[in-house]
C-alpha cells in the first residue's frame, strides 16, 4: 500500500433506506463453489466412482469364469449392463456412500469454524439461518451427487461391457431396458432418504463439535455402531428402527408390483433421525459463539 495516499478514496454511498438481504440461494451457490474448489471434495467422489470401474474391469477379466451364485443381480451381470448399477448400489450403500456423505457433511461447518472463515461470512448481510440452510443443502447436494455419479459410472461401464438389455427384477418379472433404467434411477433416488439422514447427523456433529475429524469419524462411527447393534441377540425388536437397516429398503422398488412398505417405513424412520438432528444443528448454529479464528 505504498501509494495508498495517492489512490482515489472510495466514495460513500447514501445510506440504504431498506435493507435487502441476499437470498439463501446465493449463499447455497457459493457453498457449492467452495466445495468444487476443495480437493477433499473429490476424495469421496473418487471412491464411489473408482469402485464401479474396478468392479467392471475385474468382471471382464474373469471372462468365462463362474461368477458365483451370490446376489440375484450378480447372476445377471453379463446379461444386462443394468445389473451393474443395482449391484453397485447394493455394495456401496452399506458403507462407502455413507462415508462419502460424512466426509463433506462432517466438515462443512467445523472446517469454517477452525479456519476462522465462519466469522468472515457471518459478518456480511446474510443471516445465520440462511448460512446454515445453505450449508445443509450443500451437504445433501454432495450426497446426492455421490449417489448419482456412482450410478452413472456403473451404468455406463455396465452397458458398455454387457449391453443395454432387459433385466429381471427380484420378483422374477422381466422388464425392458428403458424401464430397467428408470428403476435404477428410482432406486438410487430412494436410497437418498437414509443417506440424507447420515448427512444430517454429520451436519449436527460438525456444528456441535467444531471439529472436522471428530465429526466425520463420529458419523461413520455411528453407522458402524448401528451395524453392531443390529447383530446383538435380543435386540431384534429395535432392528427395524435402526438407520442402517434402511440402507437397503430401495430394493422394494425392484419388485413387481412395487413393494412400497419398506420405502414408507424408511421414510418415517429416517425422519425420526434426520429432523431432530437438523433442528438441533440449526439451534446450535443460531446460538453458538463464533470465537474461533
Amino acid at each position, binding site marked *: 500500500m505504498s501509494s495508498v495516499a495517492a489512490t482515489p478514496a472510495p466514495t460513500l454511498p447514501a445510506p440504504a433506506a431498506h435493507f435487502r438481504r441476499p437470498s439463501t440461494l446465493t*449463499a447455497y451457490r457459493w457453498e457449492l463453489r467452495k466445495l468444487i474448489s476443495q480437493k477433499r471434495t473429490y476424495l469421496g467422489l473418487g471412491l464411489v466412482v473408482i469402485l464401479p470401474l474396478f468392479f467392471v474391469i475385474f468382471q471382464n477379466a474373469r471372462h468365462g469364469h463362474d461368477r458365483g451364485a451370490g446376489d440375484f443381480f450378480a447372476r445377471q451381470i453379463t446379461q444386462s449392463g443394468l445389473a451393474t448399477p443395482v449391484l453397485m448400489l447394493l455394495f456401496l450403500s452399506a458403507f462407502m456412500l455413507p462415508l462419502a456423505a460424512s466426509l463433506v457433511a462432517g466438515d462443512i461447518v467445523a472446517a469454517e469454524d477452525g479456519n476462522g472463515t465462519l466469522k468472515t461470512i*457471518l459478518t456480511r448481510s446474510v443471516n445465520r439461518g440462511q448460512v446454515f440452510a445453505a450449508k445443509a443443502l450443500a451437504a445433501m447436494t454432495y450426497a446426492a451427487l455421490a449417489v448419482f455419479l456412482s450410478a452413472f459410472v456403473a451404468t455406463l461401464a455396465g452397458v458398455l461391457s454387457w449391453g443395454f438389455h432387459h433385466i429381471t427384477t427380484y420378483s422374477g418379472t422381466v422388464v425392458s431396458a428403458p424401464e430397467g433404467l428408470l428403476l435404477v434411477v428410482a432406486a438410487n433416488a430412494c436410497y437418498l432418504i437414509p443417506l440424507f439422514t447420515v448427512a444430517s447427523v454429520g451436519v449436527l456433529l460438525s456444528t456441535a463439535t467444531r471439529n472436522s475429524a471428530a465429526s466425520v469419524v463420529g458419523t461413520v462411527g455411528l453407522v458402524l455402531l448401528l451395524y453392531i447393534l443390529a447383530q446383538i441377540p435380543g435386540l431384534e425388536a429395535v432392528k427395524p428402527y435402526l438407520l442402517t437397516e434402511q440402507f437397503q429398503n430401495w430394493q422394494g422398488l425392484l419388485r413387481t408390483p412395487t413393494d412400497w412398505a419398506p420405502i414408507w417405513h424408511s421414510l418415517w424412520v429416517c425422519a425420526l433421525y434426520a429432523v431432530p438432528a437438523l433442528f438441533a444443528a440449526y439451534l446450535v448454529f443460531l446460538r453458538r459463539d463464533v470465537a474461533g479464528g
Partner: protein
Amino acid sequence: MPDARPAAAHSPGEEAPPPVRARGLVKRYDEVLAVDHIDLNVRTGDVYGFLGPNGAGKTTTLRMALGLIVPTEGAVELFGRDPMRRGAAALEGVAGFVEAPRFYPYLSARKNLELLAALDGGGARERIDEVLEVVELAPRAKHRVGGYSHGMRQRLGIAAALLRRPRLLILDEPATGLDPAGMRDMRILIRRLAEEDITVLLSSHQLPEVQELCDRVAIVDRGRVVYEGALSDLRRQGGAGYRLRTTDDARALEVARAQAGVEHAMSGEHGVSFQAQEPEVGAFSLALAQAGIGILALTPELATLEDLFFRLTESNGAAPGIDRTAIPA
C-alpha cells in the same frame, strides 16, 4: 423503538442513534469473566481507540458488537440496532474484522471478494476492482490467498470491509504483521476513511498510532473500562508533566521529592521529570533557587498515551489524578 427501524429512517431533528452504544456488556466463560459491565459510546465521525492489554476483553467486546458471540448480560447497538435481535440487518453499514481477517485459502483474492460481495448483495460486486486497487492487491488478485503473507491478508481484510461501503468500520489490530511502511499506509488509509465520515472503532496495541489517529478512546483492563472519553481530556487529566535540567540534578530530585504539590518526581537521562500544577511549579523553582540550584531548562510536557495507558492498566484503574468516571451519559 430505535431497534425496529432502519438507520436512515430518522425524522428531521431527531437525534440519530450512535454508531456503537454498549450498555452493561458482560461475557462470562464458566468461571472467567472476560467482559465485566462494559459501556461504550462511539459517536458519528469518531476515530475511536479501543485499548487494553492482552486478555483485557477487547476482542470479546468487538465480537459481541458484530453479533458473533452472545453477551451474558447487557447489549450492544449499532446505529440503534441490536445484532442479537436483528441479525444481519443490524450490520447494515457496518464492516470490519476481529483478530486476523480470514479467507478461503484455496480461492483467489478476487474469488474471496466475489463470494463476500455475493453475501453482501447490492452493488458490492462492482466495487471489487476498486477496493483491490485501494489496498494495492490488484496485481495479485488471481493468486490463491493461501500463498498470501500476513500483511497481504490484512490488506485484503480492509478490502473486504470496504466492499460494504461502511459507515462504521470495526478494525481489530489492523496494523499487526505489517512492516513500517505498511503501518504508515494503514494509518493514512484509516485517516482518509475517517475524513469521508466513516466512523472507525480501532482496537490496537500501537499506542503512538492510536494517539495519532484517535480523538476518543476507551481503555479496558481485566474486562472493565478504566477510562472512556476524549483523548485530549485524558492527557489533560494525566497532569502537566515537566522536564527539568539543573546545575545539580541529584539535589534537584531531593528538593522535588520534598516539595508539596510535586508528584512522580524521578531522574532520567535528560534530567528530572515531575508532575505538578502551575502554582506548585513556581514554588518549586523558588525552592530550587533557595537551595542554590540553577535551572538550565524547564519544559512542560503533556503525558503521552503510553504513560497514561500504563498508569491506568498497571494500577488496577486507580491511577492518581485521572477521572475514570468521565464516561459520558
